[in-house]
């Protein structure tokens, strides 16, 4: 039995402890905003936060998160009616095309901005490695800069 918190709720899983966290989140907890893209930690569509750090949940066995705190895209916004600054910036720059990778992109960007509150283009290019087949990278970069501005504004 593995027990952990996800989006501020206590949950447990009593299946195969080798099950990747991704499939526990999607199939068992039915939080479907976190996507499956490659299964080998390459594309980043499955990015979630484990104790605040962005992780590719398709390669994280659920056994390793016992007692830890997971946040998915569904738990990112402060409330139903408010958005996280990164989500807000994504809307301002109209980033999504098909949208499938964007939950993972946003989760990666949130963690990245914690560590790089005022990033350069090169910081973004070197650290945000999530894939987007629609090619929204130009807008993702702009939106990350915008999110940094919004976050700085909130703090000041």
């Amino acid at each position, binding site marked *: 039995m593995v027990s952990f918190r996800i989006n501020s709720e206590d949950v447990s899983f009593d299946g195969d402890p080798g099950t990747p966290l991704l499939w526990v989140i999607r199939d068992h907890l039915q939080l479907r*905003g976190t996507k499956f893209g490659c299964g080998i930690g390459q594309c980043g569509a499955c990015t979630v936060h484990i104790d605040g750090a962005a992780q590719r949940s398709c390669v994280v066995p659920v056994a390793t998160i016992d007692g830890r705190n997971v946040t998915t895209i569904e738990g990112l916004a402060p409330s139903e009616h408010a958005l996280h600054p990164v989500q807000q910036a994504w809307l301002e720059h109209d980033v999504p095309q098909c949208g499938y990778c964007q939950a993972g992109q946003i989760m990666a960007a949130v963690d990245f901005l914690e560590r790089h509150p005022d990033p350069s283009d090169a910081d973004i290019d070197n650290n945000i490695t999530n894939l987007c087949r629609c090619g929204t990278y130009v807008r993702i970069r702009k939106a990350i800069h915008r999110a940094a501005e919004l976050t700085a504004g909130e703090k000041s």
Partner: protein
Amino acid sequence: MSAVPRNCYLTRRQVLIAGVGAAGSLVVGLPAFAYEEEGERMLGFFIQINPDGSVVIGCKDPEIGQGLRTTVPMMVAEELDVDWNRVHIEQMPLGIVKTADGFRWKYGGGQGVGGSTGLTSNWALMRQVGADARRQLIRAAARRLAIDESQCETRPGFVVCASRDVEIPYSELIVEAAALPMPDDPAPLKAMDDYRIIGTRRKTIDARDIVTGKAMYGIDTVQPDMRYAVIARAPVLNARVKTFDDTKAREIEGVLDVFTIEGPEPGEPYVILASGVAVVATSTWAAMQGRAALDIEWQESPNASDSSDRFWRENEEMLKGEGQVVLDEGDFDAAMAAASKTITRQYRVPFVSHAPLEPQNCYAHVKPDECHIIAPTQMPSGASRSAHAVTGIPRENIRVEMTRVGGGFGRRLTNDYVAEAAMISKKTGWPIKLQWSREDDIRNDFYRPGGLHEMHAGIDADGTVVAWAQRLASGSKYYRRPDMPIENLYQAELYLDDFPRRIVDNIRMEYFHNAIGLPRGSWRAPAHTANAFVIQSFIDEIAHETGQDPLQLRLDLLGEPRELEYSGHGGPTFNPGRLARLLRFVAERIGYGKRLPKGRGIGLATHFTFGGYAAHAMEVTVADGKLSIERIVAAIDCGYAVHPNGVDAQLQGGTIDGLSTALG
């Protein structure tokens, strides 16, 4: 609302799915009555106006990231005259109606997205839907006020009757409006100058759902009692299962069933691509683990000796001989003989996989006499046909729902994964969701055809291109189509009317079909993706060899604006002057001709595809053999931009996809 017929009390979802009794008004997309229940008020298939004034507009075509779910409602909302920020969208299911000799579309237009026709195929119909609905609302208001409808106008969400100083919200008129018989003539459409939604900068209508994780894709489908399935597919094309041992697979907790899936005959038309072994389980991971535990012995495949080396070697050999001459205008041989210089180049265009980020998946529930499909697909009618082909269930009893699609790029024009899901559900009787892994996707794609292009040009003394030939050896995309004559295979690979036809007088095109077994399909703008690369690269070679400026050579060839005959998709005409205009634009914006440091240069390209004109200028650096891109200016002339933000997004995304394909 006693005027509403009893049988029309349906929920909104039922109406969108069933469209009960509304078949007679398909062409205008507006049935002769409205529905109301629990405060939901429908006007036709496409429009629902809620008591609070919010409007739900149905989109009949799938959203694959091209922005159609925003663009189509813009057309309706414009003519209906509603506030854009009160508009929501709803994905409509496949609508087909059985007729004496087949099926017809239920919603007054085809459904499906491919060939860059999503916007154009909706343009006339969806504006008319909005305009007809608005006219009905005006007529209802005029009747209620006992005045002539010419005394009524609209402002967003209201019918306004200035002479009576009255405004009536649409939501109060919808039942009366729909009860009035529709006039025979279509309502007049707005003049373009009066647009306030179409042609303006609007954002993706459901982006908030995407950034909050609420947007549901095919992979997110959950239905009651649903099981999860994966397939271990043949590792070599056309290999069949000889035997398999599922002992270990069945020991995995959650694995429910394991059985063989039979693939098609080699080279024959297909519904699915590969033989394999299906594993059904209580979760995706259990199914994947079950598959990993299978021990399968495969039969020898007739394609076992296919290889890249052999394919490219065969192409080279074929080009040494004579192929099928598919275009021969002027006198190519004489012009080449008389030319002061001749140039030949070869270009290898590789097979390319689509790799949409959402791996293929499909929900299927096959019952004895009906079937329910929920799929991320570009062609819902193809999904219906595929499910019919493997279940035998009449298509009118196959319900196909479309989800938001995590990337298409042409891959999901083919519904092989729908057929697989239906086969598994039929065999087990369970509702199942089939899930492909990324490896399944990369290995079992319908790849953009690879081919070896050989280009020839003859140049006269003043640098004019007087002869042109394109010779192509490739695996045609049409290789496995039913009733496809071998002499037509070239049509998927060489578009005869493309530049520089009707510009260079002496022109020849020659095709050689390589019968490699590797599956092929449509990748983005199929053969244009190969031919634009080849033709534009060759122009640069000509410029280089003859000491001409690459921009000026292109402009000289393209010439003045004029309409040339173009019988291919995107015609009936092609105006090379529109390409020239774009080239001048991107060249100016990137500073073409400016002094550049050593190792840096500017490249240009332009092409006409499916009615759209595009050009790129790229400033690049080559240092130590490594290419880096400094700056790109891209321009498109797609005609009137209905959704300018969407055009920008497609141009940016298409440019990046092109780069990632070209540079690997």
